[in-house]
């Protein structure tokens, strides 16, 4: 049954640097660097399968998950392993592959047209598509043994500067349909697809999809977050699991099923005021930002894999994250501001009306990374609730997390949330608390203590 979910609480932050609707090509050339980043996969302890200088094909496993060796992470390009980058405590950060440009892929075995559940599972595991399927609770890679109560797909992204899915997936509906038909094997429940009245519009290309229950959302970000959609359509209770997967990965699974070819390509976007010409590109997973744009003064630019709310900071030569489909570049904000606490602030972004910018609600901002203040104790109350459209008390949940009261966390909804769901709360927090960090650490600790 189709539902219309109206989201009232939330916030659309209008930023400068929207991607122009034109698709460029980033071909995989000899010498280009691509990477898989184990840090993209929360909770995964990676075990390397390759050594430096070893040659790999497109689809060769680079590392696997220690807790579940079936789950492998594959090289998106053919070439040779250029570097294994480690951080503090030998934490594996990046496995960098230097492409040879040949794009030779591992052999794709016979793929039947009518696959059974187990066959399909093995196919996803073998070619590195399994990590694309994640689960709530905890926002981690789904466990192949589980049987989820439902699978969720978001048909839009409501984050600032997000790509237009209607544009990205135009003429790709049949491949996606193919993937959805197979994905549906993995659950005894429903497959949900969410669309948005504005982001997708009346004549959405996704409306023709079958084998899914389509629901419509209205209202601001975070209506596009998968967590918001699960919460409003079929919330997770204790003991339940829901899976979710993005359209980008479904498309590649569809290509594998239909064309019997391995593809790790996606249409990505450059967005943000620091790019000269922000637009769409055809590229391979793990692409380096330096293959697309060079910055003259990289120090003054914040380069991000993902969006400004929940993306990961990367260097100007960094790589696209596994789950990301956009690079964002905004100005760094390492300047001092004279008497900022009293200045009228005609150009200052704020959800409060303490700056005169409230006079111009339609203004597009070129926001930088300045904190605009220092960390303080919680003082203001009732602010998170304004951008948190859940039947969950955000501030109380965060406090339970800070005092590490695991029972309270569970009662207040830690099983439903992920760090990205608190991104807007973090943006508007007067006391400048690092909420996403608190949430991720608490989820990690919760898994250790309670699961």
């Amino acid at each position, binding site marked *: 049954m189709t539902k219309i979910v109206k989201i009232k609480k939330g916030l659309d932050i209008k930023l400068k640097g929207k991607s122009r609707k034109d698709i460029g090509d980033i071909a995989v050339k000899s010498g280009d660097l691509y990477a898989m980043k184990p840090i993209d996969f929360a909770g995964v302890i990676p075990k390397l399968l390759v050594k430096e200088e070893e040659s790999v094909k497109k689809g060769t496993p680079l590392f696997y998950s220690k807790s579940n060796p079936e789950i492998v992470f594959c090289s998106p390009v053919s070439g040779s392993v250029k570097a294994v980058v480690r951080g503090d405590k030998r934490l594996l950060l990046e496995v960098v592959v230097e492409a040879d440009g040949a794009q030779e892929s591992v052999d794709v075995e016979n793929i039947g047209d009518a696959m059974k559940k187990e066959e399909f599972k093995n196919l996803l595991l073998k070619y590195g598509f399994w990590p694309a399927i994640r689960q709530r609770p905890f926002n981690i890679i789904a466990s192949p043994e589980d049987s989820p109560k439902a699978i969720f797909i978001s048909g839009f992204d409501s984050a600032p500067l997000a790509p237009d899915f209607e544009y990205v997936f135009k003429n790709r509906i049949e491949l996606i349909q193919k993937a959805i038909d197979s994905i549906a094997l993995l659950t005894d429940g429903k497959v949900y697809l969410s669309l948005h009245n504005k982001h997708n519009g009346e004549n959405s290309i996704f409306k023709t999809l079958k084998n899914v229950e389509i629901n419509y959302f209205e209202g601001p970000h975070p209506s596009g977050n998968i967590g918001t959609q699960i919460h409003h359509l079929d919330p997770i209770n204790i003991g339940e699991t829901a899976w979710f997967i993005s359209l980008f990965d479904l498309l590649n699974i569809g290509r594998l099923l239909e064309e019997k070819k391995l593809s790790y390509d996606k249409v990505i976007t450059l967005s943000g005021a620091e790019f000269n010409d922000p637009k769409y590109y055809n590229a391979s997973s793990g692409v380096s930002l330096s293959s697309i744009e060079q910055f003259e003064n990289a120090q003054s630019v914040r380069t991000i894999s993902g969006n400004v709310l929940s993306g990961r900071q990367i260097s100007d030569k960094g790589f696209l994250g596994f789950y990301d489909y956009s690079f964002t570049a905004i100005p760094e904000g390492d300047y001092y501001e004279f008497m900022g606490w009293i200045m009228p602030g005609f150009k200052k972004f704020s959800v409060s009306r303490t700056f005169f910018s409230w006079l111009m609600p339609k203004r597009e901002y070129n926001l930088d990374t300045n904190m605009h*203040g220092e960390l303080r104790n919680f003082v203001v109350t*009732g602010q998170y609730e304004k951008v948190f459209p859940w039947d969950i008390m955000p501030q109380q949940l965060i406090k339970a997390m800070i005092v590490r009261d695991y029972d309270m966390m569970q009662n207040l909804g830690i099983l439903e949330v992920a760090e990205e769901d608190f991104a807007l709360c973090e943006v508007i927090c007067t006391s400048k608390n690092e909420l996403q960090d608190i949430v991720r650490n608490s989820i990690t600790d919760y898994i250790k203590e309670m699961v």
Partner: protein
Amino acid sequence: MNFLRKYIDKIKPNFQEGGKLKMFHSTFDAFETFLFVPNDVTKKGSHIRDSIDLKRTMIFVVIALVPALLFGIYNVGYQHFLSHGESVGFWQMFFYGFMKVLPIIVVSYVVSLTIEFAAAQIKGHPLNEGVLVTGILIPMIMPPDIPLWMVAVATAFSIIFAKEVFGGTGMNFLNPALVARAFIFFAYPSAISGDKVWIAEKADAFSGATSLAQASAHEFDKIASVQDLMIGFVPGSIGETSKIAILIGAVFLVFVGVGSLRIILSSIVGLLSTALLFNVIGLNPYMDMPFYYHLLFGGFLFGAVFMATDPVSASQTAKGKIIYGFLIGVITVLIRVVNPAYPEGTMLAILLMNVFAPLIDYYVVDANVKRRLKRVKVSNN
């Protein structure tokens, strides 16, 4: 402002790790961040942040207090000359009031800031901006003739024992300014109650009773006109008399998104409905008094707008705020009408509800937990 920035950057190393003046780093920090918003950039999580911070929030509360403060200063002079039967010009009244009020403000700020700086220094945490609001609230809820040493002692008591011992702004469970007033109220009752203290250097022959005292004594014919009560030409604590000035502050606070409309409205509703209920019961003339007088008398409106809304000591949940505010209104009228000892009940009502706020929140949160658990049962059926 470049030269200032350069100078700060030059002397900064002295206050950092290894510098000669490291022990004063917290104090230096306070002054530096007062002059310049730091150049910190986002490191984790969201890459962009709202421009507001706690400094600006607190400053906006102070701005909202300005109309009530200015009128209060004028009214101190007005009441003084009225009691002496002298008629003087506006500026003379204002100047008289200014000379009365300024020392109280100075004492309150000097004492509270000194303790705050010391506490920040000892505990090594940054200066809490909440003190900016507390420092101005305390003078505004004092009678104009309050001895300065009492202001100093009360301020010190409240900052130390109502705030710092719990961990500073954000950790206290009572409103510090009200604790300062309650301290004087119980330690030196004659300085803050009765008929003699509400007009500065009052002429002996002139009655200086507040409307609340007159109502308590059932002298309803002596109560000032509604117009005077609204504008604030009545004796009382420095900042509390002008309801119009307070309402201007309230509208401002709610508009900029700093004050809680829920608490302000629910406390007014609580007050008026209880007063109406007493109208219906009508056991004595005080109960029969027009119900809306309760809103115009005493410090209720000031308390509801500027003190009940203190987010730290109030309820923190949306529903909790409504219950909390409503009960403040109810208890204020109860103390005023039923309790014979204290003519005014706002201060005690807010402090009492400060204590109960966590309990209210506990039940609101518990209701949320139960509702979410119920979902499991529904989906299992």
